[in-house]
């Protein structure tokens, strides 16, 4: 039974670019002495340039064989993703982007010699794409909570042992092309400020723990949340 049309598009309204996340993506720790007006300028500019869009599709999932029951069944490679999805009975494949105009602004600022602004613009665009995917997550959770379904966190190609090369499957299962997301030969998404991911849905003992900074091996990462060991 399919409850949803394939490749539903969602363009959330994003009222504000998240300032705190923008600063975090730019590598500014809390309390850093940095001109607020550059953060404001970057968030204001991305606010105007962003074209947030997300697309998703729901598939039945068979945990035992780690099989996504798409028209052409997709067997999940590796162990991380099946572990992440736990006993989910369904999965959502999603893609989100903020469009290409945002990244052009980064390059322009850099070329003008406004390095810090360029970095903040890049970070604000990252925050915007995360906010877009989060908004879709909220929409999903609202739809599925009524059915008592729990959602896992997002899991993207490149997390754990789910190889980046699976970006191709994630794109086609989510319908990424429908919102203008493409893939180059190195499995990079275009526009650059785009993501794909999968979310598990199920009742019962769905694994609710997800990828978090605490579990990540890149301990030197600039983006590691403060307070994470």
């Amino acid at each position, binding site marked *: *039974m*399919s*409850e*949803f*049309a394939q490749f*539903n*598009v*969602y*363009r*959330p*309204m994003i*009222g504000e670019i998240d300032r705190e996340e923008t600063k975090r993506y*730019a*590598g*500014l*720790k809390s309390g*850093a*002495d*940095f*001109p607020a007006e550059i953060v404001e300028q970057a968030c204001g500019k991305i*606010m*105007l340039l962003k074209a947030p869009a997300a697309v998703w599709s729901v598939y039945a999932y068979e945990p035992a064989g780690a099989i996504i029951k798409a028209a052409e069944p997709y067997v999940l490679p590796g162990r991380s993703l099946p572990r992440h999805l736990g006993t989910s009975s369904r999965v959502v494949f999603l893609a989100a982007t903020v469009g290409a105009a945002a990244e052009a602004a*980064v*390059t322009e600022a*850099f070329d003008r*010699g*406004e*390095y*810090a602004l*360029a*970095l*903040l613009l*890049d970070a604000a665009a990252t925050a915007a794409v995360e906010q877009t995917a989060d908004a879709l997550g*909220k*929409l999903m959770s*609202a*739809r599925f*909570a*009524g*059915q*008592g*379904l*729990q959602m896992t966190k997002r899991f993207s190609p*490149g997390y754990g042992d789910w*190889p*980046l*090369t699976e970006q191709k499957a994630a794109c086609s299962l989510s319908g990424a092309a*429908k919102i203008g997301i493409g893939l*180059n*030969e*190195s*499995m*990079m998404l*275009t526009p*650059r400020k785009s993501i794909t991911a999968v979310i598990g849905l199920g*009742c*019962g*003992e769905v694994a609710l723990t997800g990828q978090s900074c605490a579990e990540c091996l890149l301990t*030197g990462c*600039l983006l590691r949340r403060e307070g994470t060991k």
Partner: protein
Amino acid sequence: MIKIFEGAIGTTLQRLGLADKPCPEYASVTAAEAVTEIHRSYAAAGADMLECNTFGANPLKLADFGLAGETEKINEAGVRAARAAATAGMQIVGNLGPSGRLISPIGDLSFEEACESYARQIRALAAAGVDCLLFETIIDIQEMRAGVLAAKAVCNLPVICQLTYEENGRTVTGTDPATAAAILEPMGIDVIGMNCSLGPAQLLPLVAALAVATTLPVSVQPNAGLPVLREGRTVFPLSPEEMASYVERLVAAGATIIGGCCGTTPAHIRAIKEASGGLAPSQRRPLPRGVRLASRTQTVWLGAEHPTVLIGERINPSGRKAMAAAIKAGDLAMVKREAVEQAQAGAQVLDINMGVPGVDQRPLMKEVVENLAMLVSTPFSIDSTEPEVIEAGLRNFPGRALINSVSDKPGVKERIFALAKKYGAAVLVLPLEEKGLPRTAAERIAIARRLVREGKAAGLSDHDFMLDPLVLTAATDGSAPQETLSTLRCYRREFGYPTTMGLSNVSFGLPGREDINTAFYLMALASGLDAPIINPCSEKIRTMTAAARVILGTDSRGLAYSGNYVEKSAETAQPLTAEGGDVLSELCRAVMHGERERAASLALKAFAQGLEPGAITSDALIKAMQLVGEDFGAGRSFLPQVLLSAEAMKGAFDALRTKIKAEDLPYAGKVVLATVKGDIHDLGKNIVGALLSNSGFAVVDLGKDVAPSEILTAVQREKPDIVGLCALMTTTLGSMEETIALLHREGAAAGIMVGGAVLTTDYAREINADYYAANGVEAVRLARAAVKRE
């Protein structure tokens, strides 16, 4: 009397194994008796209103099961199954759920498709004889608007509208109950409420918030609590008695129709029915006086009892050549910027006028309204003289807009009143008539009176009118400003409706227009102006409005006004770089603090004092970058701060370059930089390049996605000290390795430095790189050390 809906049907169908053949609604066709039996159990439990099994029976949703063609049959069967269970006095409710798709621009379903889908289902329900329509579990106000418009277009049945709210008190797409009421009540619906998603405890405060924002009956159908997991299964935990214990409170909060959603059973409905026996509907308060406008996410009240509202005037191409040209070329960037800037400056409503000569305004108005509604959360005022353009704006605006404006023009005014009624918009009355300009307040009042009377005859209410006193030019008619102010006073006395006007006409032809406008503005506020159409970005208007609110008593004791001053003094108290010391240490500090202009002027000052460029560079600029680098390495400062310092250093370098030849500046070495083949990220590489060139390196940047052969050619040509390669993703590390192998094979003499998010020291060694730089600062340090070693 409190009326009772029936409870969940879908869960029972699921239990009976009838929910997926292929969808719950089809059970009315294939297992009509089973469906009727469910209705009977609810009827026996005391339900007054039976909800047909037609929740998902709209053609868009049915299409997922290949059943769109059977829309009429499925709805008819659903109504028949309910009718068979009904006893005298019970109402049959045509149930309408969401289409499962979101409406553009939020989703990819067009508003018109949504309307058509609902219209088809409603026609079938009406033909089958339902007593009223119930839209429920709707999460997007635009989908609800589509449903209500469809219902009004095809039948005269009463309409109940129930949205679904989250725990934050808003629908997923951001609408709160009061705003839903502001939008839907003027569209002529009959009952407003909420269902699903939350339990009675969570819905109680939302029912209360809704009831004070509407004069309509309020309905509520909670889930049986928030779902919990028990023994691996999802259950809705509230027992019938627990659920019924909320009934008295729900009624006290304003609900008069109560039912249940997910997890409720006939036993729950029976308990609710029993708990509601003998309860009287609570006394409801009338709405405040005034007019409310709404966007998808907020309500704005206008009127004498509310604070002054600024209506932003700047989205108007008349007299603005650049904006008109951009709009004509299809470029909305300027319009968007004006919207955001005005909203940030404090405009609570935005006027939208698309009067560009030679442009079809209808599709343009639709596009602009859709775009701006995604960008700002203020309601809009749709400003046009043409009913078709006004309708394009109203139809696609997910809120309640103001029509700007209606005047006494036969043939047009009737259409505008009809649009206001249909879309639930407010309307701005402009006292103009065809026979000539009314000069006196008395003439204007007479016209306004006539228009208000006609508007009411067309179905509008006291909550739907705003009045414009008409502003004429003081330079050509000395009494014009006084007549306007007098009209405002008369409006307040006779109608009490909120007033609005554009100010700037008054000063036309006079010098120092802003002063005239401001004086006029303040006097108009004193005479009863509630919502000026104005440039909110004007500093004078902003400060005067804040001050006037104190005088008018709408900013009680000047609290908000004082708040502005606190923020301001905090803004001006920014720390500046300490003065003093010699010019080089001052310059060093300026670079460290990222003060670009100051660094440039200090560099010139140092040069003017006769200091050598080499000394200025090494003792101030490079020293500053080294100190910044140390702070960065120690975690005392962060990349954006390093980049600000780099900008300041570049400012100083650029200033020095105007005085001396490039070769007199220190030269640290040469670097060829590239992001490797297949990789399209370049910000990191650009940062490294900027930091290197500011440290005296000559940087040849080959860009991103650069093939190994191209890098080799550049290295052979440039003979750099260092080749810097960047790769961001695991998928392009192979390309990096390949490049290094090629450089080694061809005997390139440069040291190879690699960096990028996924690289590590070990991996760098493995692919035979000479240096691994974890960040830009480290890259500079390594490059310096490498050149020294040579």
